[in-house]
């Protein structure tokens, strides 16, 4: 089949051709970028926190009428209340281990600072930004963190201090990501660092493979994997406990936690939000991202449907308009399949032109988005896949009207000319 007569025919329908091509181009541009955004969001949502998230839950509680924590005696009192809670939770039959902790990945409540290689370095000019997790010797097993070098905390390492106390820990475990940033040669273990511009040194005793910061907003993008664990129980009028249930006993352990705490000390606030599985924490943290991905997905589907409907509409019109010409071609010996191919080919030509324009528009739109939003460069594979999709969509949409065209009987040619 030669393209020449087809193009000659298309020139008589400039407006329709331009409209279909334009619609395909715009759809391609928007769908490519939208799918790219969906992909990025899904990637963000699916990144592992470094924790073993199954069977893990968190209890947050506040004491009523707790001591102020301003003097050593009241700090000790707060700590003994916390220890009593820990003992009660650890004695539950469905609980494997418990660690007091100030926050968890994805919890959006964080204590951040900086790590430097020299003492007294200005806070913000520190070598690396980090988040702090304050916990005790059970933190690695409770959270399911992978120790890749060095040792875990022991009970003897664990200190306790008031929350407003600015003293830093003498030893820490940090993520490999942070250690590599500070010591690119990979010899971080045993090295001395300075936290938050302090003059007092801190020694790195262990490295964990991966642990995410609590924040999920874009402001944490520069230090997502920089976490530092300190062997310190923080004492304040509230506390959080990360609890690992025995395999398969999550619901039972979550159910038992509140009564156990009330039995230890009834003077506290524990409400519906106080006991949360890690799955819920994750779902809450990423709800906006998931919502955006779903919205983009729905818009893409509707756009493709609208475009397909447009193609069906215009092609149907052309088929109706060329009824007699089709009859003539059939009378002159064209087979049904020739007519079918003619319309399919015609659509392919228009869609290809649209796809080329769409490719340029997609890249342009991506550049625009990169300028105004936090967005990466659109990988070519997205555009190429998009082109295949719109070409397939065109072929799918044209099939019904094209088959109707191929069914036009040759006898049409003999009717009233």
């Amino acid at each position, binding site marked *: 089949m030669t393209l020449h007569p087809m193009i000659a025919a298309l020139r008589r329908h400039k407006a329709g051709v331009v409209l279909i091509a334009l619609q395909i181009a715009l759809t391609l541009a928007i769908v490519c970028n939208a799918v790219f955004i969906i992909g990025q969001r899904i990637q963000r949502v699916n990144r592992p926190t470094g924790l073993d998230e199954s069977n893990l839950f968190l209890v947050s509680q506040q004491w009523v009428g707790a001591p102020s924590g301003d003097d050593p005696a009241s700090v000790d009192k707060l700590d003994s209340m916390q220890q009593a809670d820990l003992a009660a939770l650890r004695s539950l039959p469905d609980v494997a281990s418990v660690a007091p902790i100030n926050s968890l990945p994805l919890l959006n409540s964080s204590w951040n600072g900086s790590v430097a290689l020299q003492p007294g370095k200005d806070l*913000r000019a520190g070598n690396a930004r980090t988040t702090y997790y304050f916990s005790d010797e059970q933190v690695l097993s409770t959270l399911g963190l992978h120790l890749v070098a060095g040792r875990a905390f022991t009970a003897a390492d664990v200190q306790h201090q008031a929350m407003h106390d*600015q003293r830093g820990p003498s030893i820490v475990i940090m993520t490999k990501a942070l250690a590599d940033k500070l010591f690119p040669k990979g010899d971080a273990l045993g090295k001395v660092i300075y936290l938050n511009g302090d003059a007092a040194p801190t020694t790195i005793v262990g490295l964990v493979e991966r642990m995410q910061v609590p924040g999920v907003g874009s402001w944490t993008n520069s230090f997502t994997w920089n976490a530092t664990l300190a062997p310190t129980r923080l004492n304040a009028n509230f506390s959080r406990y990360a609890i690992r249930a025995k395999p398969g006993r999550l619901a039972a352990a979550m159910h038992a936690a509140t009564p156990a705490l009330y039995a230890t000390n009834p003077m506290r606030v524990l409400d519906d939000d106080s006991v949360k599985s890690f799955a819920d924490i994750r779902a809450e943290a990423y709800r906006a991202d998931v919502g955006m991905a779903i919205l983009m997905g729905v818009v893409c589907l509707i756009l493709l449907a609208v475009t397909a*409907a447009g193609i069906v509409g215009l092609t149907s019109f052309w088929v109706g308009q060329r009824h007699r010409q089709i009859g003539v071609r059939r009378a002159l010996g064209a087979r049904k399949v020739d007519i079918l191919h003619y319309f399919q080919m015609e659509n392919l030509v228009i869609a290809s032109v649209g796809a080329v324009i769409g490719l340029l528009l997609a890249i342009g739109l991506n550049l625009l988005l990169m300028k105004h939003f936090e967005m990466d460069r659109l990988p070519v594979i997205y555009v190429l896949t998009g082109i295949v999709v719109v070409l397939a969509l065109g072929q799918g949409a044209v099939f019904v009207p094209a088959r109707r065209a191929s069914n036009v009987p040759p006898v049409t040619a003999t009717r009233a000319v």
Partner: protein
Amino acid sequence: MFAYYLELALRSLKRNRVLTALMVMALALGIGATITTLTVLRLLSGDPLPQKSAQLFYPQIDPNAKEGYIEGQTKPDQLMAYPDAMNLLQAHRGTHQAAMALTQAKVMPKQVNARPFFSDAVMTTADFFAMFDAPFQYGGGWTAADDDGRAQLVVIAGFLNDKLFAGANSVGRVIRINDHDLRIVGVLKPWAPQPRFYAQDLGGRSYGDGDAVFLPLQTARAMEMGPQDTECYAAVPDIRHLETAPCEWLGVWVELDSGAAVADYKTFLDGYVKQQVALGRFQRTETSLLDLMGWLRQEQVVPDDVRLQAGLAFGFLLICVVNTVGLLLAKCLRRSAEIGVRRALGATRREIFTQFMVEAGIVGLAGGVLGLLFAELGLLGIRHQPAEYASLAHLDTWMFMFTFVVALVASLVAGILPAWRACVLAPAPQLKAA
């Protein structure tokens, strides 16, 4: 004549129901998406104090160390340290000026069995209410003397007054906050600027309900109430003594009534910073004095996702319009013969053009009505989102009317090409073909 066009248009639309439904549906989806996202965008990017925003300015300075400073490029900090905030306030260079920080107030109701609860609170200085036009239901604000004297008094919001005193005039009564008895001097009428411009960067949310408790900064600090957000620019000896710590935790606003006053204030601010540099306290000389809307723009208070969605919706509408052009074109060219007959019987080109535009307009109106339904559905969906602005997402009268404007404009733009093509058809060949 118009009635006749209307009848013709309806007839023609009825003849091809599937095509008509397709056009209306596509247009409605585009309009629904656009109106939904525009409603949210309008809500979020609105002017919180339309009558005053041009006179309100946010001074910024930079007490950070020299390291990492690039002259002319490094932006000054969002918050201010206590000594600087107090120096700016005491200079009295604006019509009004106030420093503020957000905190949590533990309110202890007097009723038996009532549990204590936390309320959003603002610790600020006397000019806050006059500067931001906060309206009082009962009583009024406090004075600068009350600020200095750490007077035990408080202004509460109407909704807190409703909760504690059943809406009665509670001025002069006592409320227990953070284990201190404070005397109520004023009760505000409902006041919740959207966005909450004054809370921006102070650690609070940007939208949503107003604050419940307003108390003098010195009084609150004496009660050991702490700010929600603290940024320290050097190692901190004791975080509890925020007044002397190298930490920023206050936002300062100034009211300046004329262009000359703004220029004067900027000169004053630059001078203040140079003086601090001379004293060795500061190393950086950058300052900024943005007006309210400029400040909100710089802070990018509208979430990126919302702006992205609005852009996406417009792209969507554009595709739907292109689609409608195509379908209308197909529809009207199919009726070439009919147009030929009408032209031969004496209809002018203008009449044909009008007829097809009326048809497009009807599609647009139908799309608008259906689009409104989609927009309401979309907003219903947004109200069920966890965003802090979710409950505010409602279609107001302006957006309601705007929906029909968008629908009509979109459909008429879509109708121009097909109507033009229809009216320039030469009648003779069409008649022959028929």
